[in-house]
């Protein structure tokens, strides 16, 4: 977690246009604190990589300014910026050994030989590549090349480490291991990490804070938990995990509390929600929905009968797809706690779905 409140990177009103028609990054403002593990998350083409490349200095800014540790670096070449990058393709130099790769960034700035040797050894130990110092990259696995790229950037002791989709080329098992490893590494070195990813699980599990981007704009910046439980728009709700969306047909205030009316469910009281805004949708995560044969008797729950139309078994849980009498599709996910508990998975069966209205997230768009 961040140790201080010092801003290390400040992105101010940054816009990037390619030609006259394409706006890759649209008036973005962002403050990243020292020591944070920050994620830029969004679908491909949302401008997250362009933003990262502007921080590294590989793209010029059309408008705005980027400050690194208080200095405006907008016109500083990548060579002289106090940030380093781990490339998506790793870009480990194929004609150099692991050791030469890691030491490259120190050699080119004329660091004394003894210091290079020490720091290279330290960096190689840090990413657990000891024993492979003399290997050429073509004799390394993808995961090992990734570690070389990490060590090569970390050895420079940058103020910020930029990671461009660092795990996308690894297989699922290795990716999970590297996620943990990156978090461990970041905690060890204390350097600010900014990671670009399109994988919401990756962002949620690794980052302290996440900025969700769509269409060149930042849609929400929040902690993983807030982002998932309290998304600010239906795009964010839908991009981060699965979501059921209900259209709001009527909005009112009763006893100072917000009431929203939804087809088939009736009027719902949502305590503690800002009554001055207009809401168009209610979002509900699938795992918040309970599934039962009988109508639950507990007071204060929302309950609706529904028919199971589709189920998909994915091991630890099952995703169940229901249809309400009014024709609305709802998805629920249930943990498969019992090995042989398949009684739920009969298609066409009439059941009851229920949840607590506090799980509703009202959305304005």
């Amino acid at each position: 977690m961040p140790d201080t409140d010092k801003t290390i990177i400040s992105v101010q009103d940054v816009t990037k246009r390619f030609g006259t028609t394409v706006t890759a990054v649209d008036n973005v403002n962002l403050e990243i604190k020292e020591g944070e593990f920050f994620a830029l998350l969004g679908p491909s083409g949302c401008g997250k990589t362009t933003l990262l490349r502007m921080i590294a200095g590989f793209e010029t800014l059309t408008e705005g300014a980027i400050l690194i540790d208080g200095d405006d670096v907008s016109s500083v070449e990548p060579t002289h910026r106090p940030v380093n990058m781990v490339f998506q393709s790793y870009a480990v130099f194929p004609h150099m050994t692991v050791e030469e790769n890691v030491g490259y960034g120190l050699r080119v700035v004329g660091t004394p030989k003894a210091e290079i040797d020490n720091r290279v050894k330290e960096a190689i130990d840090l990413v657990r590549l000891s024993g492979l110092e003399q290997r050429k990259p073509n004799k390394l696995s993808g995961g090992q090349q990734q570690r070389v790229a990490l060590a090569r950037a970390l050895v420079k002791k940058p103020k910020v480490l930029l990671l461009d989709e660092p795990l996308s080329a690894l297989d699922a098992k290795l990716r999970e291991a590297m996620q943990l490893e990156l978090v461990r590494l970041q905690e060890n070195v204390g350097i600010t990490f900014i990671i670009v990813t399109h994988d919401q699980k990756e962002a949620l599990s690794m980052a302290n804070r996440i900025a969700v981007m769509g269409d060149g704009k930042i849609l929400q910046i929040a902690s993983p938990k807030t982002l998932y439980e309290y998304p600010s728009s239906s795009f964010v709700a839908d991009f981060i995990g699965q979501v059921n969306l209900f259209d709001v047909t009527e909005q009112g205030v009763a006893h100072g509390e917000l009431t929203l009316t939804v087809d088939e469910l009736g009027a719902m009281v949502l305590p503690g929600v800002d009554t001055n805004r207009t809401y168009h949708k209610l979002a509900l995560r699938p795992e918040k929905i309970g599934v039962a044969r009988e109508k639950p008797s507990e007071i204060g729950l929302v309950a609706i009968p529904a028919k199971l139309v589709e189920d998909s078994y994915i091991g630890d849980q099952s995703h169940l797809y229901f249809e309400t009498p009014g024709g609305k599709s709802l998805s629920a996910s249930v943990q498969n706690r019992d090995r042989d508990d398949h009684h739920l998975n009969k298609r066409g069966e009439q059941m009851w779905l229920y949840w607590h209205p506090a799980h509703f997230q009202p959305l304005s768009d």
Partner: protein
Amino acid sequence: MENWRNNKIAFFILSMPPTAWLMIFFTLPLAIMWVYSFADRGPQGQIELAINFDNYIRAVEWIHLGIIWKSIWTAAIATAITFAIGFPLAMGIAFAPPQWKNPLLLMVILPFWTNLLIRTYAWIAVLRTRGFLNFGLEWVHDKINAFFALFGLTDVLGQFEALELLYSHNAVVIGLVYVYLPFLVLPIYATLEKLDKSYLEASLDLGAGHWRTLFSITFPLALPGIISGCLLAFILSMGTFLTPDLLGGTDSEMIGNLIARQFTSSRDWPFGSALSFLLLYFTFIVLWVRATMSDRNSGPVK
């Protein structure tokens, strides 16, 4: 779909014409020349078949060794100059904005659309004493003189003296550089084009300047293309005939001219054949060295 290679009859029928063509018009004449290279020249220039190495022994006499050495030296200088011009050119095209790449490549290939003979004659018009180059130099010379004349200094540079470029060794080198530039640019361009640009970005990101990146990253990674391009320019320059024939002087004879002379005025086909095969063997050796070199450092240079 069935692979046509697996169909033996189809494969046979389709591969017959080109194979026959190559056999009759390439392999067979080459074999004849090889046999001739061991033959004797008769008094009237006829070929008397024999098996001796007299022609090869003659080829390494001092006078001929001198010409061979001169050919190697000229080709080496021409290749070096071609590289000095061609590498920046190839880099310029490879790193140009995408919409510029094809027009620029087209300009490199454009000379191929005109006959080599005509293009070489054009160089005569450029290089001769009353040629375009000297006209241009004279114009600059006169302007400089006129400029100083404004300050009352007359004849600062003196009388213009035309450069005697044509029919010299320099003219041959200029001609070779011009003719073989595309052969060097294209392989280097192909390598640079395929090169993952993030290697260069990574180098810059790690604090290396543009020159350091050029020498530590771009150059080593483009080495296969550089070697191919330089070898191509060198081998073609070595065996050239037209350029020294048209642009060169009496002292510019290269091995290609020597060979050509044996088949024309000297009427000594056996000696010409022997020289041709020596040139061929030399080329094979160069290519073999290159192949073993690339085998040794066959890294995953993408």
